[in-house]
């Protein structure tokens, strides 16, 4: 069994209304030291694979197929045995 941690974030030039709204809320709560905030997704995936390489391959392809909208998002991941 392998454990993959996948981090999905907005591409820089894409509008992130969610992050904006959270930042504004924090400012209203007087956290004025917050300069910017962006909200992304974080997946923890447990999967079976014959090797780490095979696991990485699967992770790469589920990112492309489903987890990530490549029009708007970028991603990175770590895979470890676990």
């Amino acid at each position: 069994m392998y454990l993959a941690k996948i981090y999905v974030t907005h591409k820089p030039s894409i509008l992130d209304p969610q992050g904006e709204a959270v930042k504004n809320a924090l400012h209203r709560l007087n956290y004025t030291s917050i300069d910017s905030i962006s909200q992304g997704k974080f997946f923890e995936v447990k999967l079976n694979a014959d090797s780490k390489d095979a696991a990485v391959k699967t992770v790469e392809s589920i990112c492309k197929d489903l987890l990530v909208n490549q029009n708007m998002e970028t991603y990175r991941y770590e895979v470890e045995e676990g």
Partner: protein
Amino acid sequence: MKFAVISFPGSNCDWDMYYAINDALGEEADMVSSESTDLDQYDGVLIPGGFSYGDYLRSGAIARFAPVMKAVKKLADAGKPVLGVCNGFQILVEAGLLPGSLQNNTSMEFISDWAPLKVVNNRTMFTNGYSKDQVIKVPIAHGEGNYYCDDATLQELKDNDQIVFTYEENPNGSCDNIAGITNRAGNVLGMMPHPERAVESILGGTDGLTLFKSILNQVRS
């Protein structure tokens, strides 16, 4: 009776609630901004549906910090009726006035339809006009109406008769088919279905009007 309808940035059922009280019920309701801090002149508070602050982060999470929420708590502590519908329910939960949380519908899709509901507890100030186990028809419209709480909380809700409405056909995966609950004292009701959309027969039914009439009954008697 004089109600306050709380309007947050992004509330979109605020006017529906306002008209339900002023036109259909024939009582008085004011539109009150979420920035205001004083609700002392009101006999009850209605927190409407919508997408307060866009429902970004988690629905209701940002709204809970609005200045008005302190006043809502005060009014709730005084035993006056507080009703949260849909996003209003989510806000009450985030604010800790009601237990549990509202998660994504299991279909992960928004659902809008008429839902048959069972009145499980008709001895609350919101439901005294219904008979026990009466099935009423009220519209639902939500993406995050899947009520969830841990087992201990659920047991408490049951033991204290806090479950008020359940779905006849569960549309969203909520535990024990819960559609609406009260706080322990029974004066704060949160529900996903929209009673304010069922107050005129031209709109498809008046089962929701009975809820507002129940509040009047209680206060007047």
